């Protein structure tokens, strides 16, 4: 019987197998990486030059976020405190000035060179986020940063991807809270009220209408 198929067909199953294997592996690897929190760096917890604990400062001592992040209500950028702010309490003859954990701060105070804090939350260069407009309009630190007061070392709590931004911009009622509770990381709606009800009330009262058009964030 004549050969119906040319000889190279013999290799076809192998070729197909390899091809499919490569494609499947790539797909799995791609989804594994890009579709999971690893890509958005949720849980990113870099080493900081100073082992600063928000638990001690906020939860135990009851300090307000704005003591250190002092310009969050007026500027787009929520500032990291200057060395002088740290030294205000940790200055010579004050609290724990000689602690080895504060070496970087003391060094910075003596030399005038700033402390290089590792950046955790990073919005891409083409996106412009404004802190002031969020915290003044009922969006708590908690919504984007999680319960920082319970973090001995700060890590990224939310994906901060564009889809995540838009979730809230499309339905801000899920995050709006009373203005006096913005900096309270532990706030929960009182019994009998849901977040949605409270949020809807504020949304209507304050005319909250966040932009969902490209130009709201991209300039």
């Amino acid at each position, binding site marked *: 019987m004549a050969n119906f198929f040319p000889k190279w067909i013999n290799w076809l199953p192998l070729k197909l197998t390899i091809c499919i294997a490569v494609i499947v592996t*790539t797909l799995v690897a*791609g989804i594994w*990486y890009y579709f999971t929190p690893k890509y958005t*760096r949720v849980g990113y917890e*870099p080493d900081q030059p100073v082992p600063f604990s928000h638990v001690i400062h906020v939860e135990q001592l009851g300090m307000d976020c704005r003591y250190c992040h002092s*310009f969050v*209500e*007026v*500027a*787009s*950028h929520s*500032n*990291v*405190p*200057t*060395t*002088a*702010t740290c030294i205000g309490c940790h200055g010579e003859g004050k609290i724990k000035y000689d602690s080895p954990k504060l070496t970087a701060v003391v060094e*910075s*105070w003596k030399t*005038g*060179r*700033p*402390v*290089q*804090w*590792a*950046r955790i939350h*990073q919005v*891409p*260069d*083409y996106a*412009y986020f*404004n802190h*002031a*407009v969020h915290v*003044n*309009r*009922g969006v708590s630190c908690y919504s984007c940063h999680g319960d920082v007061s319970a973090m001995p070392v700060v890590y990224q709590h939310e994906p901060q991807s564009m889809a995540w931004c838009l979730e809230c911009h499309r339905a801000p009622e899920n995050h709006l809270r009373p*203005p006096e509770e913005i900096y309270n990381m532990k706030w929960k709606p009182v019994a009998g009220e849901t977040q949605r009800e409270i949020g809807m009330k*504020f949304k209507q*009262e*304050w*005319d*909250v*209408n966040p932009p969902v*058009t*490209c*130009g*709201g964030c*991209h*300039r």
Partner: protein
Amino acid sequence: MKKIINHPSRPERPTMWRSMEEFQNTPEFEETLQREFPAGAAVYDESGLSKRDFLKLMGASMALAGVGLTGCRRPPSFLVPLTQGVEWTVPGKFLYYATAMPTRLGAIPLIATTSDGRPTKVEGNPLHPYSNGGTDVFAQASVLDLYDPNRLKAIKREGASTDAASFDTLIGEIRQRGEGLAVLADSANSPSRDRLRMELKVAFPGMIWAEYEPLATGESTAAVVAAFGDGTSVRPNFEAADVILALDSDFLDSTEAGPSFTKAFYQRRKPEQEGRGMNRLYVVENHYTSTGGLADHRLRVRACDIGAFLAAVSVQVASLTGNSALSSAASAFPAGTTTFDEVWITECAKDLASASGRALVLVGREQPAPVQALGYALNGALGSLGTTLLGYNTGAAPKVATIEDLAAALSSNSVQTLIILGGNPVYNAPANLKFAELLAAMPTSIHLSLYEDETSKMCKWAVPAAHYLETWGDTRTLDGTHTSIQPMILPLWNGVSQLDILSQLLGRPRSEGPEIVRETFQQRVGSTGTALDLAWNEYVRTGFLAESAFPAAALSLNTGAITAGIAAYQPSPADGAEVVFLKSSSVDDGRYANNSWLQETPDFVTKLTWDNAALVSPADAAELGIKDGDMVEIVAGDTRLECAALIAPGHADKSVSISLGYGRKDVSALMQNVGFDAYPLRTVATPRFRKGVSVKATRGPKYKLARPQEHQSMEGRDLFREGTLDRFKKNPTFALNMGMDAHLPPEISIYNNPLFQPEQMAKEQWAMTVDLNVCNGCNACLVACQAENNVPVVGKDQVIRGRDMAWIRIDRYFASPESSLENPEMVAQMITCQHCENAPCETVCPVNATVHSEDGLNLMAYNRCIGTRYCANNCPWKVRRFNYFDYNQRPIDKLYFGPLAPKGMADSLKMSKNPNVTVRMRGVMEKCTFCIQRIEEAKIARTVKAGASDKSKVPVAPFKTACQQACPSEAIVFGDENNPDRLVSKLRKDPRGFTMLKYVNARPRITYLARIKNPNPAMPGADLVGNINTPDHHGESHGEAPHGAIDPHGSPAPAAHH
């Protein structure tokens, strides 16, 4: 049903054209038009690699590289706070400080924007009495000069870097020697420098203090002194001027006199104004200036004949007014051989004389002093003194030596030490002084300079100068107001100011703060203690000392001195052509030659970038047999200059104009091979024009000129509209129904888009209007946009390929109803993204990168753009710009290097970027955003203020776009057209308003207000003035084609206007 748009046909011979090619309708031009993109725009590089080849290669390399590499982790980044907070500083928020930029004649009061301690943008200071908040192109670009990585960064001794201590030793030696000291300075109008100079005069009695500015020679001062005596200055009062005759005077150039100079002129230019009517402007000049473009009547006269022309006008006015003083002064003027248009002169003189007391004659500052003095005599006869020409008492200023005096002293060997403060005399001193040779012979020479330029290289010592944004200082604006200069940043490269050097020469310790300026201030205000502190704080905060302008003074004309001056005046008898030296609109006198923003800004008349050229009239060009870009040789005496020629419509015959400031050699890579140096032709006796030159075509290869004007054409449509005052009064909405627009069928939509609901629209709807009546095309908006929006420069080679990136372009048309090249009108039109409501670009984007926002903006999401360029293709206005290369990351001479070549911009240039605007990368499209960063900031400010309340419903506080804020003539108005309180909502409905290309129904958000001309009916050619558009359809050739069944305009609906 597909809508078929019938475009108007392009006339055989255009009445409105942008380039010579378009005017002549050459086959090459036709081919350019038919192309989607300029030739070579799709070609990858010099090797001829096409886009298709490129894609193949890229595909292969992608396969090789694999996708695995893209998974690399983001590099760690850091947050670096200050160690100690700085007063007023909030990270990420702008701070604004009042300061000023000194200019040749005065200063431009400014507000500098600093972002985290870096000045990134300057705006005019609207509080200042001599400012309307406008700026000019040079002030806008000065920020780039500050961060220029090519600046001189260390003290150099004979070319080798040295330290400050050895320079201090040198100053000590100079002090010890005491004699043989000479200083050559630029003009700074600084009270502190004047004070230190007086003190130096006491300390070094033999010191020679000379001042030199290549474009402010002594002629205008000499004329004022002759006409009105010493210690006087004159300024026109446009408020009162009904008829203005400008002779070789580009008075609307805001760099000369400051932006507020012309405020009143523009107010009187408005056709709708109440009370006094619109003014009338006659301009007589040899080449087109931006002022000439606004003229109602313009005459081409050679610069060397301006005097004779003025004398002819004066004779007529003298006989009309019976003024014997003027008559004797005018008849003393040496008779020339040139004849002028007699009717023009007679009618112009009649118009001037009939407007006695409301007329104004302006003569160019560089014209010979006797000519300018005759101008004052004419003003005297017209009753202008004290009405349209006001006098001010400047006080008797101590005399300064001129550069000729200094050259004489240098050659007599009486000077051992020459200190040159600013300026670049080796390059720009009058050629006959041979300054370079004199300087080379100096035992000690010091040059304080921003750059290591020709003079620095020739001097024994070169000292880096501080930029005006880095130093304390003071200055006086043209009206005399004391204006403060304060530093925005510490000197980037150890620059020192002129005041520092002078005070060091006086043996005083180096001051770190404002001590020198404050002492001058104290002497001026005369107070002490708290009163002084308060006054000083106010001075620094507002940027000026109130009521410190020169006091008004009565002007009394010294006719004897004028006549004597004129009688003694002997114009050069040489015949042949003249060469006229112009101030460059891009590099001034050459001082901005290293500023790439300015180099790439097209000249407002020639549209030339990265070069200058000899401008010749069309008739001369025909005689010489040359075309644009052909080389010509200009021979004056024993000096020859070979340069490229450019045909300039409206240029005087037997006259060649060339901009100064180009042709720098061996200074920086940026300046290399840029233009031709005309300074060698210029001598002490010929500051403005030189007679007796010969021009001949050389058979050299054609020179490549980069002119973005040619890239886009708008084919005989009524894009720019103008009419006369009479026409406007009869029919205020004449511009609305010009050409095709008269026949537009009503727009009926047969499909109601359910997604488009009025309630989805935002409260604010952004719109802009541009008043063509007052826009003279000065380019300030263009450079302001560049500074605000981080627009990169691309270099000459890329401009030739049509890849220029400027978001604003200023279309300059020459227009003549008779299609004449001799003296056409010149009009300017600022074009940027029109933010069309039915934007054609949005419908073709495959990835939704360009979409509409609810507040009417045509948005551009850079991170979505994949660079198909369909949008640019479909844009009727051709305002979209594509990043063919990483213009921000690569120097312009290394654009074609491969992907592994080093990338990144100089650190200092990074500091100049606006942090609120994305720096775009290769492969994305960009265009005007209506300054969305300012819109968003304003909206955010409103929302933050509202806080927990519904006050976010209040209107957004008014703000300005960068172009609007820079505009010295207030032609651009931007705002919310839904808010009836905003000017823009009124101007959008202005009777003069029209939108471009209305028939394509893109509904632009930019309305242009038609230009109105105010011709004098008795003037020759008056019927052609203000008549450049295609003839009104009504009443002409209208009977033949009835509307209806066979509608010539592509619509079955009957035209609405019948």
